[in-house]
Protein backbone atom coordinates (compact mmCIF):
# COMPACT_ATOMS: atom_id res chain seq x y z
CA UNK A 1 0.00 0.00 0.00
CA UNK A 2 1.38 3.39 -0.95
CA UNK A 3 -0.73 5.17 1.64
CA UNK A 4 1.12 7.69 3.76
CA UNK A 5 0.40 6.82 7.38
CA UNK A 6 0.68 9.58 9.94
CA UNK A 7 -0.66 8.65 13.36
CA UNK A 8 0.75 11.86 14.82
CA UNK A 9 -1.99 13.75 12.97
CA UNK A 10 -4.24 13.61 16.03
CA UNK A 11 -1.95 15.97 17.94
CA UNK A 12 -1.62 18.50 15.14
CA UNK A 13 -3.81 21.62 15.31
CA UNK A 14 -6.99 21.49 13.24
CA UNK A 15 -7.77 24.26 10.72
CA UNK A 16 -10.81 25.39 12.70
CA UNK A 17 -8.58 26.66 15.49
CA UNK A 18 -10.42 24.61 18.11
CA UNK A 19 -7.36 22.70 19.29
CA UNK A 20 -6.00 19.47 17.85
CA UNK A 21 -7.69 17.00 15.50
CA UNK A 22 -8.24 14.79 18.53
CA UNK A 23 -10.23 17.59 20.20
CA UNK A 24 -12.34 17.77 17.05
CA UNK A 25 -13.18 14.06 17.23
CA UNK A 26 -13.90 14.23 20.96
CA UNK A 27 -16.30 17.15 20.48
CA UNK A 28 -17.99 15.00 17.84
CA UNK A 29 -18.26 12.16 20.35
CA UNK A 30 -19.79 14.51 22.92
CA UNK A 31 -22.37 15.67 20.38
CA UNK A 32 -23.16 12.06 19.39
CA UNK A 33 -23.81 11.20 23.04
CA UNK A 34 -25.87 14.34 23.67
CA UNK A 35 -28.04 13.72 20.61
CA UNK A 36 -28.42 10.03 21.41
CA UNK A 37 -29.44 10.61 25.04
CA UNK A 38 -32.05 13.23 24.12
CA UNK A 39 -33.33 11.01 21.28
CA UNK A 40 -33.52 8.04 23.66
CA UNK A 41 -35.57 10.02 26.19
CA UNK A 42 -38.01 10.99 23.41
CA UNK A 43 -38.10 7.39 22.16
CA UNK A 44 -38.81 6.03 25.65
CA UNK A 45 -41.57 8.55 26.45
CA UNK A 46 -43.41 8.21 23.12
CA UNK A 47 -42.60 4.52 22.74
CA UNK A 48 -44.06 3.74 26.18
CA UNK A 49 -47.23 5.73 25.49
CA UNK A 50 -47.77 4.11 22.09
CA UNK A 51 -46.80 0.66 23.34
CA UNK A 52 -49.38 0.91 26.14
CA UNK A 53 -52.01 2.22 23.73
CA UNK A 54 -51.53 -0.83 21.54
CA UNK A 55 -52.46 -3.09 24.46
CA UNK A 56 -55.53 -1.14 25.64
CA UNK A 57 -59.00 -2.54 24.97
CA UNK A 58 -59.99 0.68 23.14
CA UNK A 59 -59.99 0.17 19.37
CA UNK A 60 -59.26 3.84 18.70
CA UNK A 61 -56.15 3.70 20.90
CA UNK A 62 -55.04 0.52 19.18
CA UNK A 63 -55.42 2.05 15.73
CA UNK A 64 -53.63 5.22 16.70
CA UNK A 65 -50.71 3.13 17.96
CA UNK A 66 -50.78 0.97 14.85
CA UNK A 67 -50.64 3.99 12.50
CA UNK A 68 -47.86 5.62 14.56
CA UNK A 69 -45.69 2.51 14.38
CA UNK A 70 -46.31 1.90 10.66
CA UNK A 71 -45.64 5.55 9.84
CA UNK A 72 -42.27 5.68 11.56
CA UNK A 73 -41.18 2.16 10.63
CA UNK A 74 -41.83 2.23 6.90
CA UNK A 75 -39.71 5.21 5.92
CA UNK A 76 -35.93 5.34 5.91
CA UNK A 77 -34.56 7.42 8.79
CA UNK A 78 -32.75 9.62 6.29
CA UNK A 79 -36.04 10.48 4.55
CA UNK A 80 -37.68 11.23 7.91
CA UNK A 81 -34.87 13.61 8.85
CA UNK A 82 -35.27 15.36 5.49
CA UNK A 83 -39.00 15.68 6.11
CA UNK A 84 -38.46 17.32 9.51
CA UNK A 85 -35.57 19.46 8.34
CA UNK A 86 -36.49 20.63 4.82
CA UNK A 87 -40.20 19.98 4.36
CA UNK A 88 -41.88 20.76 7.70
CA UNK A 89 -40.82 24.46 7.90
CA UNK A 90 -42.23 25.06 4.39
CA UNK A 91 -45.61 23.52 5.19
CA UNK A 92 -46.16 25.43 8.43
CA UNK A 93 -47.65 28.93 8.46
CA UNK A 94 -45.03 31.43 7.40
CA UNK A 95 -44.17 32.83 10.85
CA UNK A 96 -43.76 29.39 12.42
CA UNK A 97 -41.70 28.15 9.47
CA UNK A 98 -39.34 31.13 9.66
CA UNK A 99 -38.98 30.64 13.41
CA UNK A 100 -38.10 26.97 12.86
CA UNK A 101 -35.57 27.76 10.17
CA UNK A 102 -33.84 30.39 12.31
CA UNK A 103 -33.63 28.16 15.35
CA UNK A 104 -30.02 28.00 16.53
CA UNK A 105 -28.69 24.44 16.50
CA UNK A 106 -31.48 23.32 14.16
CA UNK A 107 -29.58 20.16 13.01
CA UNK A 108 -29.16 19.06 16.64
CA UNK A 109 -32.85 19.43 17.54
CA UNK A 110 -33.99 17.90 14.25
CA UNK A 111 -31.67 14.93 14.72
CA UNK A 112 -32.68 14.34 18.35
CA UNK A 113 -36.41 14.59 17.64
CA UNK A 114 -36.21 12.74 14.30
CA UNK A 115 -34.15 9.84 15.63
CA UNK A 116 -36.24 9.83 18.82
CA UNK A 117 -39.55 9.47 16.99
CA UNK A 118 -38.04 6.89 14.61
CA UNK A 119 -36.88 4.80 17.58
CA UNK A 120 -40.15 5.31 19.48
CA UNK A 121 -41.88 2.98 17.01
CA UNK A 122 -39.38 0.24 17.84
CA UNK A 123 -39.65 0.82 21.60
CA UNK A 124 -43.45 0.66 21.28
CA UNK A 125 -43.31 -2.72 19.54
CA UNK A 126 -40.93 -4.10 22.18
CA UNK A 127 -43.10 -2.84 25.04
CA UNK A 128 -46.24 -4.24 23.44
CA UNK A 129 -44.53 -7.62 23.19
CA UNK A 130 -43.35 -7.31 26.80
CA UNK A 131 -46.84 -6.55 28.10
CA UNK A 132 -48.23 -9.31 25.89
CA UNK A 133 -45.80 -11.83 27.37
CA UNK A 134 -47.21 -11.35 30.88
CA UNK A 135 -49.72 -13.96 32.02
CA UNK A 136 -53.34 -12.82 31.65
CA UNK A 137 -53.81 -13.33 35.37
CA UNK A 138 -51.65 -10.29 36.19
CA UNK A 139 -54.10 -7.86 34.67
CA UNK A 140 -57.06 -9.74 36.10
CA UNK A 141 -55.55 -9.77 39.58
CA UNK A 142 -54.93 -6.04 39.35
CA UNK A 143 -58.57 -5.49 38.40
CA UNK A 144 -59.76 -7.83 41.14
CA UNK A 145 -57.79 -5.83 43.71
CA UNK A 146 -59.74 -2.74 42.63
CA UNK A 147 -56.91 -1.01 40.78
CA UNK A 148 -57.96 1.32 37.99
CA UNK A 149 -56.52 0.76 34.50
CA UNK A 150 -53.90 3.46 35.09
CA UNK A 151 -52.94 1.97 38.44
CA UNK A 152 -52.84 -1.52 36.95
CA UNK A 153 -50.35 -0.40 34.33
CA UNK A 154 -48.39 1.77 36.76
CA UNK A 155 -47.97 -0.76 39.58
CA UNK A 156 -48.40 -4.18 38.00
CA UNK A 157 -47.93 -4.47 34.24
CA UNK A 158 -45.29 -1.87 33.35
CA UNK A 159 -42.76 -2.66 36.11
CA UNK A 160 -42.78 -6.29 34.95
CA UNK A 161 -42.85 -5.55 31.23
CA UNK A 162 -39.94 -3.09 31.32
CA UNK A 163 -37.78 -5.51 33.26
CA UNK A 164 -38.54 -8.30 30.77
CA UNK A 165 -37.71 -6.19 27.71
CA UNK A 166 -34.54 -4.67 29.17
CA UNK A 167 -32.15 -6.72 26.96
CA UNK A 168 -33.85 -5.75 23.66
CA UNK A 169 -34.11 -2.16 24.92
CA UNK A 170 -30.32 -2.18 25.36
CA UNK A 171 -29.83 -2.97 21.70
CA UNK A 172 -32.39 -0.32 20.75
CA UNK A 173 -30.37 2.21 22.76
CA UNK A 174 -27.22 1.11 20.91
CA UNK A 175 -29.15 1.54 17.64
CA UNK A 176 -30.10 5.04 18.74
CA UNK A 177 -26.44 5.94 19.21
CA UNK A 178 -25.57 4.48 15.81
CA UNK A 179 -28.52 6.16 14.09
CA UNK A 180 -27.39 9.64 15.15
CA UNK A 181 -24.68 9.22 12.49
CA UNK A 182 -27.38 9.61 9.83
CA UNK A 183 -27.70 13.24 10.95
CA UNK A 184 -24.43 13.92 9.12
CA UNK A 185 -26.72 14.48 6.10
CA UNK A 186 -28.39 17.50 7.70
CA UNK A 187 -25.04 18.93 8.75
CA UNK A 188 -24.77 17.71 12.34
CA UNK A 189 -21.07 17.42 13.18
CA UNK A 190 -21.29 14.34 15.38
CA UNK A 191 -18.54 11.72 15.56
CA UNK A 192 -18.86 10.37 12.00
CA UNK A 193 -19.24 13.92 10.69
CA UNK A 194 -16.12 15.10 12.51
CA UNK A 195 -14.15 12.07 11.24
CA UNK A 196 -15.32 12.92 7.73
CA UNK A 197 -14.27 16.56 8.01
CA UNK A 198 -10.94 15.55 9.56
CA UNK A 199 -10.43 13.34 6.50
CA UNK A 200 -11.28 16.23 4.18
CA UNK A 201 -8.90 18.65 5.92
CA UNK A 202 -5.95 16.35 6.53
CA UNK A 203 -6.32 13.61 3.85
CA UNK A 204 -5.54 11.07 6.59
CA UNK A 205 -8.57 8.92 5.75
CA UNK A 206 -7.77 5.76 7.62
CA UNK A 207 -6.45 7.40 10.79
CA UNK A 208 -9.62 9.49 11.07
CA UNK A 209 -12.00 6.57 10.53
CA UNK A 210 -9.98 4.23 12.75
CA UNK A 211 -10.25 6.71 15.61
CA UNK A 212 -14.01 7.11 15.07
CA UNK A 213 -14.39 3.30 14.93
CA UNK A 214 -12.50 2.86 18.20
CA UNK A 215 -14.61 5.53 19.90
CA UNK A 216 -17.84 3.86 18.75
CA UNK A 217 -16.58 0.48 20.00
CA UNK A 218 -15.68 2.07 23.34
CA UNK A 219 -19.14 3.64 23.73
CA UNK A 220 -20.71 0.30 22.83
CA UNK A 221 -18.63 -1.56 25.41
CA UNK A 222 -19.46 0.96 28.14
CA UNK A 223 -23.20 0.83 27.43
CA UNK A 224 -23.27 -2.98 27.27
CA UNK A 225 -21.38 -3.30 30.56
CA UNK A 226 -23.55 -0.73 32.33
CA UNK A 227 -26.75 -2.37 31.10
CA UNK A 228 -25.55 -5.77 32.25
CA UNK A 229 -25.24 -4.39 35.79
CA UNK A 230 -28.69 -2.82 35.50
CA UNK A 231 -30.14 -6.10 34.20
CA UNK A 232 -28.74 -7.98 37.18
CA UNK A 233 -30.00 -5.28 39.56
CA UNK A 234 -33.59 -5.33 38.30
CA UNK A 235 -33.78 -9.07 37.46
CA UNK A 236 -37.09 -10.64 38.41
CA UNK A 237 -36.76 -13.42 40.99
CA UNK A 238 -38.16 -16.70 39.67
CA UNK A 239 -37.38 -15.95 36.00
CA UNK A 240 -34.50 -17.70 34.21
CA UNK A 241 -32.43 -14.52 34.37
CA UNK A 242 -33.53 -13.85 37.95
CA UNK A 243 -31.62 -14.18 41.20
Amino acid sequence: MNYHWNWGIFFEPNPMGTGTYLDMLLSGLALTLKTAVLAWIIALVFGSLIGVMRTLPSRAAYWFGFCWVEFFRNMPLLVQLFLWYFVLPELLPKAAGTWLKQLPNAPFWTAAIGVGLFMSARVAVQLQAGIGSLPRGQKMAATALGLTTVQGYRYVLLPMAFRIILPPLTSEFLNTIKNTAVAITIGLLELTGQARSMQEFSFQVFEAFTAATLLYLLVNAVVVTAMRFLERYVAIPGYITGK
Partner: protein
Amino acid sequence: MFGNLDFDVIRRALPYLFFEGMTFTVTLTTLAGLGGLIFGTAIALMRLSGFKVLGRIAGIYVDFMRSLPLVLVIFWFYFLVPYIGQWVTGASRPISVGAFASSLITFIMFEAAYFSEIMRAGIQSISRGQPAAANALGLTYAQTMRYVVLPQAFRNMLPVLLTQTIVLFQDTSLVYVLSIPDFLGAASKVAQRDGRLVEMYLFAAVVYFTISCVASFGVRRLQARIAIIR
Protein backbone atom coordinates in the same frame (compact mmCIF):
# COMPACT_ATOMS: atom_id res chain seq x y z
CA MET B 1 -50.45 25.11 2.89
CA PHE B 2 -49.99 23.20 -0.36
CA GLY B 3 -50.95 26.32 -2.35
CA ASN B 4 -47.63 27.26 -3.89
CA LEU B 5 -46.41 23.73 -4.51
CA ASP B 6 -45.78 22.50 -8.04
CA PHE B 7 -46.49 18.80 -8.24
CA ASP B 8 -45.83 18.77 -11.98
CA VAL B 9 -42.12 18.72 -11.20
CA ILE B 10 -42.60 15.15 -9.95
CA ARG B 11 -44.30 14.05 -13.17
CA ARG B 12 -41.47 15.48 -15.25
CA ALA B 13 -38.85 13.75 -13.14
CA LEU B 14 -40.61 10.37 -13.02
CA PRO B 15 -38.58 8.60 -15.74
CA TYR B 16 -35.30 9.68 -14.18
CA LEU B 17 -36.45 8.81 -10.64
CA PHE B 18 -37.60 5.32 -11.51
CA PHE B 19 -35.41 4.22 -14.42
CA GLU B 20 -32.20 5.52 -12.85
CA GLY B 21 -32.86 5.90 -9.15
CA MET B 22 -35.24 3.10 -8.27
CA THR B 23 -33.40 0.67 -10.57
CA PHE B 24 -30.20 1.38 -8.67
CA THR B 25 -31.93 0.99 -5.30
CA VAL B 26 -33.69 -2.26 -6.20
CA THR B 27 -30.61 -3.81 -7.84
CA LEU B 28 -28.48 -2.88 -4.86
CA THR B 29 -31.06 -4.25 -2.42
CA THR B 30 -31.44 -7.55 -4.29
CA LEU B 31 -27.75 -8.23 -4.84
CA ALA B 32 -26.75 -7.09 -1.35
CA GLY B 33 -29.55 -9.22 0.13
CA LEU B 34 -28.42 -12.33 -1.75
CA GLY B 35 -24.73 -11.71 -1.09
CA GLY B 36 -25.40 -10.92 2.55
CA LEU B 37 -27.46 -14.07 2.93
CA ILE B 38 -24.76 -16.32 1.42
CA PHE B 39 -21.92 -14.67 3.32
CA GLY B 40 -24.06 -14.50 6.47
CA THR B 41 -24.88 -18.21 6.29
CA ALA B 42 -21.16 -18.95 5.98
CA ILE B 43 -20.49 -16.85 9.09
CA ALA B 44 -23.28 -18.60 10.97
CA LEU B 45 -21.82 -22.01 10.04
CA MET B 46 -18.40 -20.82 11.21
CA ARG B 47 -19.86 -19.73 14.56
CA LEU B 48 -21.61 -23.07 15.04
CA SER B 49 -18.73 -25.20 13.81
CA GLY B 50 -16.68 -27.21 16.26
CA PHE B 51 -13.57 -25.13 15.56
CA LYS B 52 -13.13 -22.62 18.39
CA VAL B 53 -10.86 -20.30 16.39
CA LEU B 54 -13.28 -20.03 13.44
CA GLY B 55 -16.15 -19.36 15.82
CA ARG B 56 -14.19 -16.64 17.60
CA ILE B 57 -13.27 -14.91 14.34
CA ALA B 58 -16.86 -14.99 13.12
CA GLY B 59 -18.13 -13.73 16.48
CA ILE B 60 -15.71 -10.82 16.52
CA TYR B 61 -16.66 -9.90 12.95
CA VAL B 62 -20.37 -9.85 13.77
CA ASP B 63 -19.95 -7.86 17.00
CA PHE B 64 -17.63 -5.43 15.26
CA MET B 65 -19.96 -4.74 12.35
CA ARG B 66 -22.97 -4.41 14.61
CA SER B 67 -21.26 -1.80 16.81
CA LEU B 68 -20.64 0.64 13.97
CA PRO B 69 -23.07 3.06 12.31
CA LEU B 70 -23.80 2.14 8.70
CA VAL B 71 -22.77 5.64 7.55
CA LEU B 72 -19.29 5.13 8.98
CA VAL B 73 -19.02 1.68 7.35
CA ILE B 74 -20.07 3.18 4.00
CA PHE B 75 -17.28 5.73 4.31
CA TRP B 76 -14.77 3.05 5.35
CA PHE B 77 -15.40 0.86 2.35
CA TYR B 78 -15.63 3.76 -0.06
CA PHE B 79 -12.05 4.70 0.79
CA LEU B 80 -10.76 1.21 1.56
CA VAL B 81 -12.00 -0.77 -1.48
CA PRO B 82 -9.62 0.91 -3.98
CA TYR B 83 -6.68 -0.09 -1.76
CA ILE B 84 -7.97 -3.65 -1.35
CA GLY B 85 -8.37 -3.82 -5.13
CA GLN B 86 -4.80 -2.66 -5.56
CA TRP B 87 -3.58 -5.28 -3.11
CA VAL B 88 -5.57 -8.09 -4.78
CA THR B 89 -4.64 -7.25 -8.37
CA GLY B 90 -1.10 -6.17 -7.57
CA ALA B 91 -1.58 -2.86 -9.37
CA SER B 92 0.83 -0.01 -8.74
CA ARG B 93 -1.82 2.47 -7.55
CA PRO B 94 -5.23 2.24 -5.86
CA ILE B 95 -7.71 1.08 -8.51
CA SER B 96 -10.92 3.00 -8.93
CA VAL B 97 -14.10 0.97 -8.48
CA GLY B 98 -17.43 2.41 -9.40
CA ALA B 99 -19.94 3.78 -6.93
CA PHE B 100 -22.15 0.74 -7.43
CA ALA B 101 -19.43 -1.84 -6.75
CA SER B 102 -18.25 0.05 -3.69
CA SER B 103 -21.71 0.31 -2.15
CA LEU B 104 -22.54 -3.29 -3.06
CA ILE B 105 -19.44 -4.57 -1.23
CA THR B 106 -20.29 -2.34 1.74
CA PHE B 107 -23.83 -3.62 2.06
CA ILE B 108 -22.87 -7.29 1.58
CA MET B 109 -20.25 -7.06 4.32
CA PHE B 110 -22.52 -5.08 6.64
CA GLU B 111 -25.73 -7.05 6.14
CA ALA B 112 -23.87 -10.38 6.43
CA ALA B 113 -23.42 -9.63 10.13
CA TYR B 114 -27.18 -9.21 10.60
CA PHE B 115 -28.20 -12.10 8.31
CA SER B 116 -25.73 -14.39 10.07
CA GLU B 117 -27.47 -13.82 13.41
CA ILE B 118 -30.82 -14.69 11.83
CA MET B 119 -29.44 -17.83 10.20
CA ARG B 120 -27.72 -18.82 13.43
CA ALA B 121 -31.03 -18.62 15.27
CA GLY B 122 -32.65 -20.61 12.45
CA ILE B 123 -30.04 -23.37 12.57
CA GLN B 124 -30.22 -23.53 16.36
CA SER B 125 -34.00 -23.85 16.23
CA ILE B 126 -33.71 -27.23 14.48
CA SER B 127 -33.95 -30.18 16.78
CA ARG B 128 -30.85 -32.21 17.54
CA GLY B 129 -32.42 -35.34 16.11
CA GLN B 130 -32.27 -33.97 12.55
CA PRO B 131 -28.47 -33.77 12.15
CA ALA B 132 -28.16 -36.94 14.24
CA ALA B 133 -30.47 -38.80 11.84
CA ALA B 134 -28.58 -37.40 8.84
CA ASN B 135 -25.36 -38.58 10.43
CA ALA B 136 -26.85 -42.05 11.00
CA LEU B 137 -27.83 -42.18 7.32
CA GLY B 138 -24.19 -41.65 6.46
CA LEU B 139 -24.44 -38.10 5.15
CA THR B 140 -21.28 -36.02 5.38
CA TYR B 141 -21.25 -32.65 7.19
CA ALA B 142 -21.68 -30.79 3.89
CA GLN B 143 -24.56 -33.04 2.83
CA THR B 144 -26.23 -32.71 6.23
CA MET B 145 -26.13 -28.93 5.97
CA ARG B 146 -27.09 -28.84 2.30
CA TYR B 147 -30.02 -31.29 2.39
CA VAL B 148 -31.25 -31.36 5.99
CA VAL B 149 -30.37 -28.39 8.19
CA LEU B 150 -30.15 -25.32 5.94
CA PRO B 151 -33.41 -25.84 3.97
CA GLN B 152 -35.37 -26.07 7.23
CA ALA B 153 -33.50 -23.19 8.86
CA PHE B 154 -34.07 -21.05 5.78
CA ARG B 155 -37.76 -21.86 5.68
CA ASN B 156 -38.27 -21.14 9.37
CA MET B 157 -36.45 -17.84 9.12
CA LEU B 158 -37.86 -16.68 5.77
CA PRO B 159 -40.18 -14.01 7.26
CA VAL B 160 -37.37 -12.61 9.41
CA LEU B 161 -34.97 -12.64 6.47
CA LEU B 162 -37.49 -10.78 4.32
CA THR B 163 -38.15 -8.23 7.08
CA GLN B 164 -34.41 -7.65 7.31
CA THR B 165 -34.40 -7.16 3.53
CA ILE B 166 -37.03 -4.43 3.90
CA VAL B 167 -34.75 -2.76 6.46
CA LEU B 168 -31.92 -3.15 3.94
CA PHE B 169 -34.08 -1.53 1.25
CA GLN B 170 -34.58 1.49 3.50
CA ASP B 171 -30.92 1.55 4.52
CA THR B 172 -29.68 1.72 0.93
CA SER B 173 -30.91 5.32 0.96
CA LEU B 174 -27.80 6.08 3.04
CA VAL B 175 -25.58 5.86 -0.07
CA TYR B 176 -26.81 9.44 -0.34
CA VAL B 177 -23.70 10.40 1.68
CA LEU B 178 -21.56 9.37 -1.32
CA SER B 179 -23.72 11.47 -3.72
CA ILE B 180 -24.79 8.33 -5.57
CA PRO B 181 -28.07 8.64 -7.51
CA ASP B 182 -30.12 5.93 -5.85
CA PHE B 183 -33.84 6.70 -5.54
CA LEU B 184 -33.41 9.27 -2.77
CA GLY B 185 -30.22 10.62 -4.34
CA ALA B 186 -32.01 11.10 -7.67
CA ALA B 187 -34.94 12.81 -5.94
CA SER B 188 -32.56 15.09 -4.09
CA LYS B 189 -30.67 15.96 -7.32
CA VAL B 190 -33.90 17.01 -9.02
CA ALA B 191 -35.00 18.81 -5.86
CA GLN B 192 -31.85 20.89 -5.76
CA ARG B 193 -31.77 21.53 -9.51
CA ASP B 194 -35.36 22.79 -9.64
CA GLY B 195 -35.48 24.25 -6.13
CA ARG B 196 -38.38 21.95 -5.27
CA LEU B 197 -37.23 20.28 -2.05
CA VAL B 198 -40.69 19.98 -0.50
CA GLU B 199 -42.38 18.22 -3.42
CA MET B 200 -39.51 15.84 -4.14
CA TYR B 201 -38.88 14.79 -0.54
CA LEU B 202 -42.58 14.31 0.12
CA PHE B 203 -42.81 12.17 -3.00
CA ALA B 204 -39.76 10.12 -2.01
CA ALA B 205 -41.26 9.58 1.45
CA VAL B 206 -44.57 8.41 -0.05
CA VAL B 207 -42.81 5.99 -2.41
CA TYR B 208 -40.60 4.46 0.32
CA PHE B 209 -43.59 4.26 2.65
CA THR B 210 -45.81 2.53 0.08
CA ILE B 211 -43.21 -0.02 -0.97
CA SER B 212 -42.22 -0.89 2.60
CA CYS B 213 -45.86 -1.11 3.73
CA VAL B 214 -46.87 -3.39 0.88
CA ALA B 215 -43.77 -5.53 1.36
CA SER B 216 -44.26 -5.95 5.11
CA PHE B 217 -47.93 -6.74 4.56
CA GLY B 218 -46.83 -9.43 2.09
CA VAL B 219 -44.35 -10.81 4.61
CA ARG B 220 -47.12 -11.07 7.23
CA ARG B 221 -49.32 -12.97 4.78
CA LEU B 222 -46.45 -15.26 3.85
CA GLN B 223 -45.66 -15.88 7.51
CA ALA B 224 -49.23 -17.02 8.14
CA ARG B 225 -49.13 -19.29 5.10
CA ILE B 226 -45.83 -21.06 5.53
CA ALA B 227 -45.93 -21.45 9.30
CA ILE B 228 -45.32 -25.08 10.16
CA ILE B 229 -47.97 -26.42 12.47
CA ARG B 230 -46.30 -28.36 15.22
